[in-house]
């Protein structure tokens, strides 16, 4: 339910941009790493609730999850991995470091053109 806090930040950013553009935002695209624990449905629900009565009422949020990446300590390969069976695809080593998760980013907004 921390999605509410995230939704509030998104709303603030989109509203500011909408004012600048003087247009109605229709779709906003968000991306984040998988470790951010952002559930698209919960985020959409929270956003819808707080956007009521604002310029963002009815704006659709699209969430793209970026894969988790690791770097192999044996061969240096950087790879995407599944949390269930992580191993280096190049040399098979299970010794790797986790690279920082992709941050939560508001990628772009599509506005209604008058």
């Amino acid at each position, binding site marked *: *339910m*921390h999605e509410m*806090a*995230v939704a509030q*930040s*998104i709303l603030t*950013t989109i509203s500011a*941009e909408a004012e600048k*553009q003087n*247009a109605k935002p*229709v779709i906003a695209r*968000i991306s984040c790493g*998988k*470790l*951010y*624990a*952002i559930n698209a449905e919960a985020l959409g629900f929270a956003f819808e609730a707080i956007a009521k009565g604002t310029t963002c009422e009815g704006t659709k949020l699209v969430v793209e999850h970026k894969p*988790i990446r690791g770097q192999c*300590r044996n061969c240096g390969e950087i790879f995407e991995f599944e*949390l*269930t*069976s*992580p191993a280096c695809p190049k040399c098979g080593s*299970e*010794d*790797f*470091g*986790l690279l920082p998760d992709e*941050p*939560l*980013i*508001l*990628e*772009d*907004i*599509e*506005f*209604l*053109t008058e």
Partner: protein
Amino acid sequence: MHKVSIGRKILSANEEYALQNSQFLNERKKLCLNMISSPGSGKTTILTRTINELKGEIKIGVIEGDIQTDLDAGRIRATEAPVVQINTEGACHLSAVQVSGALEKLPIGVLDLIFIENVGNLVCPSAFELGEAGKIVVLSVAEGDDKPVKYPAIFAKSKALLINKIDLLEAVGQVDFCLERAKADARKLNKDIEIFPVSAKTGEGMTDWYDWLKGKVNNLR
């Protein structure tokens, strides 16, 4: 329709405060650890025992995060350690701005180590940086050995894992928990994670945890 590229970080307000907290702590050479677990895993018991048994060696202060009540702060206060309670009033995680306010209320100059006891929740707190030097995840054996697989984010991000309530493992047939499985699954996600099987109730295994803490604190002195 026309598309406008934004490309802006969204948790940036929280991250700014987290950075400020981190700078504040680094300038003063204070170690800060963010403790995260499910409700009831024994975070507060681990802290009270740690504070009492390290008295005279490491001066510990605590920031307590709970949705409601100051029950946990009361338990910390009984050890005579400085404590600040934050009530999140429903929020499932502590945020950096709350910790910033709490840091100002602690007698930071006399402390070596500040523990942040986050709201009992294995999911949300892992996404909010508070300015800590590291995260500590606590898992109690009654919760089951499948938690590293089911809640991977916090195990992947933590510096140390305390597997608590190992005294219950002796009650054969009462708790199904394979210590080796939990350790192996956590290490699969995080090769560097330090793992301490402990019982904060009986004190078993706590010495290794204390040695690790002392090493970290001494590195900053």
